[in-house]
């Protein structure tokens, strides 16, 4: 099972070499064997998954194929509403969130033939970058016991890295897809704001929330994105723009691609091993034909502050009832971050929203006038020890959280596509990663660059040592 990718399993099922039931059974057995320790799942729906798989095998036997994911077992962050399964959003309450309709992204994946294994662990209310969860157990990094998985889509990162699911959905409000992707050595894409519908997903901060795919390979991410992207009348912010053929460009190479490296902000205070790996990745891109230039980008620190104001206010509004009625159920750091939102004035919130528009237009015009992509690190250091970063007073922990997500958050404010992928391992065996960012709706370019790099570097072939 650990050698399959979505693309290879899908092809094998279509060729009759393996059935959906066999693939699903293997995932479930692996999850049963490993998840007591890894804590990737909040809900493992073995019965439902096998029932879906049997139906898909029957359809295949009758010559009916639902789509490119026919029989492929996937799992979803536990903030995606799926009828018949509880959606805890990482809280103590099993059914914290419900929606009139199933999550659109999940519905589209199922329509394309995906089997739903279950719902994945996450930081409580998607508020936190490390992957800790006192209610459902801290997700465990398969590459280093005791090290952070990254969050908030912690279970998504772990399940894919450990081969419990072939792909997953995550959500990203300040880095929550890219941080676990980086910590767990998988590929994770935060698409452009509006590219993937947010309908049926618990909102944290509707202005900053993005839904996106996480998988072992760039091809698998492209495949999932092609299925979930596109206009959805149930999400007023989803774009009408047509969806590109993401798979078509993956093998085209990157000769002549203009790649920028920021000389300010992103490499400041970066761990030496992380910086070395990202700069080596840039040299690989250069060897593949990219033209790499250093540029100064508009100060991302302001966008981080703007994002924080917006996210704190919106999340406090969304979860006000929980905070006011059952504050004792919320972990102290999560509660502190929510409470901050009650104290920011409406004036500052609105000014932040107005500023965001200007900062976005300025950033895109200044950075992408002469380049096609921007490359930056994702995390400031390899996955830290969870016990270390979650120790101490609430203020100290909150400060560490802010530092850990400072390289990803600007792109939530900017709404740009940002793709995290592995670029090596530290001497201690922990994943190192970089992100590729492009113009709005140019997911095709970040996927093409990622695909070329992945083929040349081969980090996606490495597997964590698990029993």
């Amino acid at each position: 099972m650990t050698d399959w990718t979505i693309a290879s399993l899908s092809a094998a099922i279509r060729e009759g070499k393996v059935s959906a039931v066999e693939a699903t059974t293997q995932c479930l057995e692996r999850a049963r064997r490993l998840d007591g320790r890894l804590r990737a799942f909040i809900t493992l729906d073995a019965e439902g998954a096998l029932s879906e798989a049997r139906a898909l095998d029957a359809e295949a036997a009758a010559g009916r194929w639902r789509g490119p994911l026919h029989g492929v077992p996937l799992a979803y962050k536990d903030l995606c509403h799926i009828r018949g399964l509880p959606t805890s959003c990482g809280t103590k309450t099993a059914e914290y969130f419900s929606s009139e309709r199933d999550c659109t992204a999940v519905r589209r994946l199922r329509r394309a033939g995906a089997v739903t294994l279950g719902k994945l662990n996450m930081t409580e209310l998607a508020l936190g970058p490390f992957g800790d969860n006192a209610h459902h157990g801290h997700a465990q990094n398969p590459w280093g016991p005791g090290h952070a998985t990254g969050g908030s889509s912690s279970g998504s990162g772990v399940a894919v890295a450990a081969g419990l699911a072939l792909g997953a959905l995550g959500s990203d409000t300040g880095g929550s897809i890219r941080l676990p992707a980086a910590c767990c050595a998988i590929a994770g894409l935060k698409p452009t704001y509006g590219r993937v519908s947010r309908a049926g997903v618990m909102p944290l901060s509707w202005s900053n929330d993005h839904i996106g795919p996480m998988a072992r390979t760039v091809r698998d991410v492209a495949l999932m994105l092609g299925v979930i992207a596109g206009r959805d009348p149930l999400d007023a912010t989803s774009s009408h723009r047509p969806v590109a053929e993401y798979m078509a460009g993956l093998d085209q190479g990157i000769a002549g691609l203009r790649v920028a490296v920021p000389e300010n902000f992103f490499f400041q205070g970066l761990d030496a091993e992380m910086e070395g790996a990202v700069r080596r990745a840039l040299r690989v891109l250069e060897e593949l034909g990219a033209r790499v230039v250093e540029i100064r980008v508009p100060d991302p620190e302001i966008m981080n502050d703007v994002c924080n104001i917006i996210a704190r206010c919106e999340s406090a509004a969304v979860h006000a009832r929980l905070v006011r009625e059952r504050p004792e159920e919320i972990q102290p750091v999560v509660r502190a971050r929510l409470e901050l939102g009650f104290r920011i004035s409406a004036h500052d919130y609105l000014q932040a929203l107005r500023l965001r528009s200007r900062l976005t237009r300025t950033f895109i015009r200044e950075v992408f006038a002469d380049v096609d992509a921007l490359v930056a690190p994702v995390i400031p250091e390899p996955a830290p020890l969870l016990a270390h970063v979650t120790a101490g007073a609430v203020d100290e922990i909150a400060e560490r959280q802010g530092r850990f997500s400072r390289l990803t958050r600007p792109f939530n404010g900017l709404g740009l596509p940002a793709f995290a992928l592995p670029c090596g391992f530290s001497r201690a065996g922990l994943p190192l990663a970089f992100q590729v960012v492009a113009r709005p709706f140019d997911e095709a370019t970040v996927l093409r660059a990622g695909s070329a790099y992945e083929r040349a570097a081969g980090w996606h072939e490495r597997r964590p040592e698990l029993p």
Partner: protein
Amino acid sequence: MAESKGQQATLARLASVIERAAGDLSLAEEPARFIAALEDEADPEGAG
């Protein structure tokens, strides 16, 4: 919901950022311009 010192410092810093950065926003700059910026500034060749 008493504020901690860290929260007080964060709130003061964020408020000062807004005061500094938003001072010269023009009357026409409104939140909806964010979506417009993404659509307007997308790859002109329509990659996406």
